[in-house]
């Protein structure tokens, strides 16, 4: 093999398509879904690309059915994915609770839109609470990953499959209309599995072994309490092992932005402008929203003069930032429900905060 042929070519794709490429690279051969804007590129891509490689694409009658198709295929031991947007993800909450209770892995993609209700198709980060706190009943958690580039749409999807399998738990990708529809180059790096591929718990027929089941009902004395503590230990382990974040231009940053996804992407531009003016601003970008990088946020807040939380909602992650640190007096918020904050708006806010902490533009550090 020559060097040239071993080279991985860059691809120019939409974020939604990069998710599909990542899923297929990670060995996902089963996709089920139901149409909803702004994620239709995903089922469309999968319906074209899965059958030729022996995979299965099936359009469901509803998101309620979709998530239960996932349940059945996951119980069969296969990697399986669906995607939707806010209203559809709401309909999946029942199934997600059952899958968490039954300890079944799967990847769920939310290319979120504005809400509540039918809301609109404008980009939004209004589904943060639902994703991170989990909207289904009974109390459970899921790893939630928030990509901020097409590259991450690709790579975090592969990671989501590994996390789902590692913890036998659904994992969620939280994107939005912008990151899903945006086209930019990315490098489809090869998938390297980080978890064993065997699933001895899968329901494959009881040939040569006792029958087994996949269930979430525990009626006997104390069983459900024992089960809940078992699940809790998994969530604790996620908090210990799966915190992911990106520190961006944090050197000497008196102003620390905390933002994820598209809001973080836009913030990077504003930070570059502000840094050129000598304003001491950086960003701590949570990549995993659950587990939330609480310790890192606390450390950043302790060392900063001011913490600016930026979200495309009226303040949801803001609550997790507040819970992560005692420095509440330093926390500011810039929110824009159902729209992208512009780099200009963020830049202006950075300048205002610089004034508040007594730093003037032009004083390069």
């Amino acid at each position, binding site marked *: 093999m020559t060097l040239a042929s071993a080279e991985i070519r860059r691809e120019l794709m939409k974020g939604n398509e990069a998710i599909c490429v990542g899923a297929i690279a990670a060995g996902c051969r089963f996709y089920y879904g139901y149409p909803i804007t702004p994620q239709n590129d995903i089922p469309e891509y999968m319906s074209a690309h899965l059958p030729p490689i022996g995979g299965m694409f099936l359009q469901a009658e509803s998101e309620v059915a979709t998530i239960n198709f996932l*349940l059945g295929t996951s119980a069969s031991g296969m990697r399986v994915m669906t995607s939707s947007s806010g209203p559809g993800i709401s309909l999946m909450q029942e199934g997600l609770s059952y899958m968490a209770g039954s300890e079944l892995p799967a990847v769920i993609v939310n290319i979120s839109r504005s809400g509540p209700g039918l809301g609109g198709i404008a980009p939004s980060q209004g589904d943060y609470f639902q994703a991170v706190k989990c909207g289904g009943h009974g109390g459970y958690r899921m790893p939630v990953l928030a990509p901020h580039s097409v590259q991450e749409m690709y790579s975090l999807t592969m990671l989501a499959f590994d996390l789902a399998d590692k913890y036998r738990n659904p994992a969620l990708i939280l994107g939005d209309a912008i990151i899903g529809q945006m086209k930019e180059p990315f490098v489809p790096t090869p998938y390297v599995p980080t978890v064993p591929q065997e699933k001895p718990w899968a329901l494959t027929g*009881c040939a040569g072994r006792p029958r087994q089941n996949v269930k979430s009902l525990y009626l006997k004395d104390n069983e459900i309490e024992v089960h809940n503590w078992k699940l809790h230990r998994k969530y604790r382990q996620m908090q210990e092992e799966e915190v992911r974040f990106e520190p961006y231009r944090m050197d000497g940053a008196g102003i620390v932005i905390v933002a994820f996804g598209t809001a973080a992407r836009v913030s990077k531009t504003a930070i570059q402008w502000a840094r050129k003016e000598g304003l001491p601003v950086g960003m701590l970008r949570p990549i995993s929203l659950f587990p939330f990088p609480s310790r890192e946020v606390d450390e950043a807040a302790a060392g900063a003069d001011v913490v600016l939380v930026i979200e495309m909602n009226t303040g949801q992650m803001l609550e997790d930032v507040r819970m992560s640190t005692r420095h509440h007096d330093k926390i500011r918020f810039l929110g824009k429900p159902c729209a992208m904050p512009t780099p200009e708006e963020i830049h202006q806010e950075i300048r205002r905060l610089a004034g508040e902490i007594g730093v003037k533009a032009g004083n390069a550090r």
Partner: protein
Amino acid sequence: MKGEARKKFTREVFSRPKSLVDVRTHFCPGCHHGIAHRILAESIDHFGIREKTIGVACVGCSVFLYDYIDVDVAEAPHGRAPAVATGVKRAQPDKFVFTYQGDGDLAAIGTSEIIHAANRGENITVLFINNTTYGMTGGQMAPTTMLGQKTSTSPYGREFRNDGYPIKMAELLATLEGTAYSARVATSTPGQIRKAKEAVRKAFEMQIREMGFSVVEFLSTCPTNWGMKPLDAQQRVLGEMSEYFPLGVYKERRQADFV
């Protein structure tokens, strides 16, 4: 007589099906779930498919399927068993996949899932237990509750102006192109049990021969929630229930019809 002598001079005519686990069930006296379970287990044995069968249990009295039938079983959310079975069958088309659902599960909360699984011609088999009530939750009104029937949520009797009519699922599902087999049986007499067995075998055959969706509706009893003695409950099935829900085969696809 014991040991060798027993084998030599006796002939086994009746025994527990291999696929039926030897445990005491939680079903009430006079409930027909036990009969349906037995027929299910016998059919699995008949086709010799125990080790390649995956069952899907629904929510209700029959959720403990995995304690009684010696096969792999997944538990579905209420009403979603046909969707879960779809996910299993799509992932493992070489396996035998069945659901076992009650009337609240299949004909109320899971109507969408059952109709679309049937309409897709999903190659699965559905055993549907119609006892005109929600058994596990304490005898509330079901979509199949008869007009005038008193339940814990229709204390004055089901009235069509308020609650509509009992739904006839075997007939409804037979109208769908994807359905290969739809029949309604009962298990209140030995003759009915024999016919029920035949129907379940037919339904199994449809799946084994990849003919599409198959469903067998069982008219069943719930003496506890009906407030009846077991024998009176049998009589109710033979009487008013069979009159409104006629027994019979509503659809049977022949190989020749299937392209």
